[in-house]
């Protein structure tokens, strides 16, 4: 059973890539190097995990395409954000996160929600306000992480 499914579409100089599953030592990026583009828009929405050797393979893939290529990351899950914050070199100079999931908590419902945020919404490392309808009333959810830590990847 394949642990990772990768799809790529070409749109002019853009390459739209969606990744589903796990990036690990088996990550084979050879097909992604064919017909290279200038901008790689990568959707991480369905990515479950990148292990340590997977991170190394990911960096190798980016290096193969060269520093002139631009990488844009979309829909990054919580665990991938954690790794970008922790592992130096994971978020290369030519890569930028455009959107990502962040944990919010609704006290009224005692429920967690992963909210999709745009990187451009984060000002001064403060989480944007998110509200939710509870019994017909709008209630504010609490950002459920330490902002300074969670948004560290935006510091570069």
């Amino acid at each position, binding site marked *: 059973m394949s642990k990772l499914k990768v799809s790529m579409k070409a749109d002019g100089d853009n390459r739209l890539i969606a990744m589903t599953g796990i990036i*690990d030592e088996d990550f084979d990026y050879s097909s992604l190097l064919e017909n290279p583009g200038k901008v790689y828009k990568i959707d991480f929405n369905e990515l479950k*995990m990148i292990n340590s050797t997977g*991170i190394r393979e990911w960096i190798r893939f980016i290096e193969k395409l060269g520093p002139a290529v631009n990488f844009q990351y979309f829909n990054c899950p919580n665990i991938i954000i954690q790794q970008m914050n922790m592992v130096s070199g994971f978020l290369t100079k030519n890569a930028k996160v455009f959107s990502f999931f962040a*944990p919010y908590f609704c006290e009224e419902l005692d429920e*967690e929600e992963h909210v999709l945020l745009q990187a451009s919404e984060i000002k001064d490392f403060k989480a944007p306000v998110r509200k939710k309808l509870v019994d017909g009333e709008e209630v504010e959810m609490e950002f459920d992480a330490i902002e300074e830590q969670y948004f560290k990847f935006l510091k570069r």
Partner: protein
Amino acid sequence: MEIKKILILSQSALMLLPSLERSMEEFNGGFKVSFKSDFTFEEADLVFLDYTYLKNEEEKYKSALEYVPKLALLTALVDHNGINEILKETKVEHLFGLSGANSFSDIRDFIITFFNKQYWTADTFCKNPLKVSEMSFLSSEDIFESIQELLLGHDFSECFEGIEDYLTQVLNESILNAIFNAPVDDMGSHMFKRMNKKTVIHMIPGKEPVVKLLTDPKKIVISIKDFYGTLTRNDIFDYLPLGEIREKEGGAGIGMYLIFKYSHKFVINIQPRKFTEMIFVIDKDKRFKWYSSKEKSFHLFMPNEEI
């Protein structure tokens, strides 16, 4: 009966002292303890030091670091990089993240384990598990599927969403370490360490790493044991505190760093040439914020090390 001298240079430990003294008086295990703040480092058998307190007293701090094997540092730091800096700088074998609910029992259990030259086990942290799963890894094939099987049936409803992904990563990194990095041949040379992790490795019968997962209403405890005992103190302090990909072949060199980041307690038991056991304890928390802002502890037990 032998009296073990414990030097306390820590505000946090001092606060726990009355309960500790009472509890240790009741302990009937072949030794008694005496807690004081004015033993010298030399005469003390064990020293509890508050990290921040000593950072302000440089001379005392430097002297303390000459006694690392009997040092237990205490800190309330929650920042993972901060904790790693301490470990890198001091190479201390016991670092307690304090102020948690288990501070008192952890210190008491530690004193007993330390003086009895024993190890902490998965059962130390999960005395009445609701579920236990155990698995031996005969080869490096299908690790991901085996991890999903291990997680099956455990109750994670009191955890933040996505905890299974974190556990999968912790298990994946540590199982790969046990399979590829632990085995040595008769000459003591590593057999698979430099191999590509895609290679299918079959373990020598009787030497398969064993993984145990225990859960109770409050905790998740993972133990991974290999039967080679080749992990060294130098390896630990070289790789654990550094989140940098340095290795070009074999592992990437950040596995231990990642799993410590995702755990609240990280215990390593080593009996050289016999076994290495890594134990990770994660407190169950419904809030991601609480999970990621808890104090961390690190413990390395090598009581039978030949010097």
